[in-house]
């Protein structure tokens, strides 16, 4: 248990060990630890960001869906309105068409009546002439009595 040169030997060994530890052991391990800390922090931050982005996305999706729903309601309403309009239009058109057809038919009927009346008139004139011929027993000169016959015809 004497104090001797071992004292200095131990001091030197100690200093060399500390130097080696400071140079080759401490920095790489601390670096790795720091880096891992950073990686973990980054990962957590990324997860947090992802979560926030998902929330935002969900919010946006909800908004889009809400908008789409509103639009759909609008479209349906306008379509219904338009349908009603079309139906109304069709009704009006049909009414007009019907009236037109009726008018045309009436006009035609009128014309037919007129025509029939004309035909009847000439027939009646002929019949009257023939009747008169028979009554008078002689031929009535049509040309001579044309004026009279025409007057008769118009009276009919």
């Amino acid at each position, binding site marked *: 248990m004497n104090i001797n040169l071992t*004292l200095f030997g131990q001091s030197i060994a100690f200093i060399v060990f500390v130097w080696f530890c400071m140079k080759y052991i401490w920095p790489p391990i601390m670096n790795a630890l720091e880096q891992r800390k950073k990686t973990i922090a980054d990962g957590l931050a990324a997860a947090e960001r992802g979560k926030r982005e998902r929330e935002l996305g969900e919010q946006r999706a909800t908004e889009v869906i809400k908008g789409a729903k509103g639009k759909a309601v609008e479209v349906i309403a306008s379509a219904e309105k338009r349908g009603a309009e079309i139906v109304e239009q069709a009704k009006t058109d049909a009414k007009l068409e019907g009236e037109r057809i009726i008018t045309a038919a009436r006009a035609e009927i009128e014309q037919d009546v007129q025509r029939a009346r004309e035909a009847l008139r000439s027939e009646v004139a002929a019949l009257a002439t023939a009747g008169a011929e028979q009554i008078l027993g002689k031929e009535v000169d049509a040309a001579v009595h044309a004026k009279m016959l025409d007057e008769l015809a118009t009276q009919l």
Partner: protein
Amino acid sequence: MASENLTSTAYIKHHLQNLTFGVHPDGSWGLAHGAQEAREMGFWAIHLDTMFWSVLLGCVFLWLFRKAAKRATSDTPSGFLNFVEWVVEFIDDNVRGSFSGKNDMVAPLALTLFVWILLQNTMDLVPVDWIPWTTQKIAALFGADPRHVYMKVVPTTDPNATFGMSFAVFALMLYYSLKIKGPLGFAAELTMQPFEAKNPVLKILFMPVNLFLEGIGLLSKPVSLSLRLFGNLFAGEMIFILIALLFSGGVVLGLLGGALQWAWAVFHILIVLLQAFIFMVLTVVYLDMAHHEH
């Protein structure tokens, strides 16, 4: 395991003697054949066993941690690397907790002190006779007298080892005190407190008193640091040696010795760890004080 031809006293003395290499009084170099010769060698001698085991353990520490440091990545650590990182973080936390200055040397210094002292102390848990007995047998093969082959395997039971470390720490304390506070600041720290005075005459009168008190305080730091470690480990080693004496006393005493050795070893694990930790923490605290400006 004490040989039949050895008395208890001789057995204990043999275990407490370092393997000393140095200058004999007649001027020749050689191994000391006993405590008497070792003492006569005076300062110019070296304890081969202390040096060998401490340097070996220091190299084991550096090798293991260097291996871990090379493999250290930011990926998930596994096995041994995990353990090393745990130790490093433990030291880092402690240094951050008690060292407020900025010095990249303190944390590696603390790591080296802690692991190295821990490994040296752990040698105490190796049964006291294993390594010395093996060494004696091997030395006998080379024709040496086994009675003069000494092997003290726990370096921290040699005051040279503990003082070697604490003096290096003391040198660092002085260096950083002078560097951070300046020679005048350091001198003021040693002479202007704990007794303070406004009066210049009183101030000068207080100076020697303060220097005496602070000087003792300063010098007691390395001495207490090393003697605490040495005392604890030496006492522990001594008890192991005393327990080992029981092994030569028959079956009953031998079994009792075995039980006692086991029990003391379990308790000693605490001392081994605690003393390494205390040495490390106090070193960090002392260096922190050296970095502190008033």
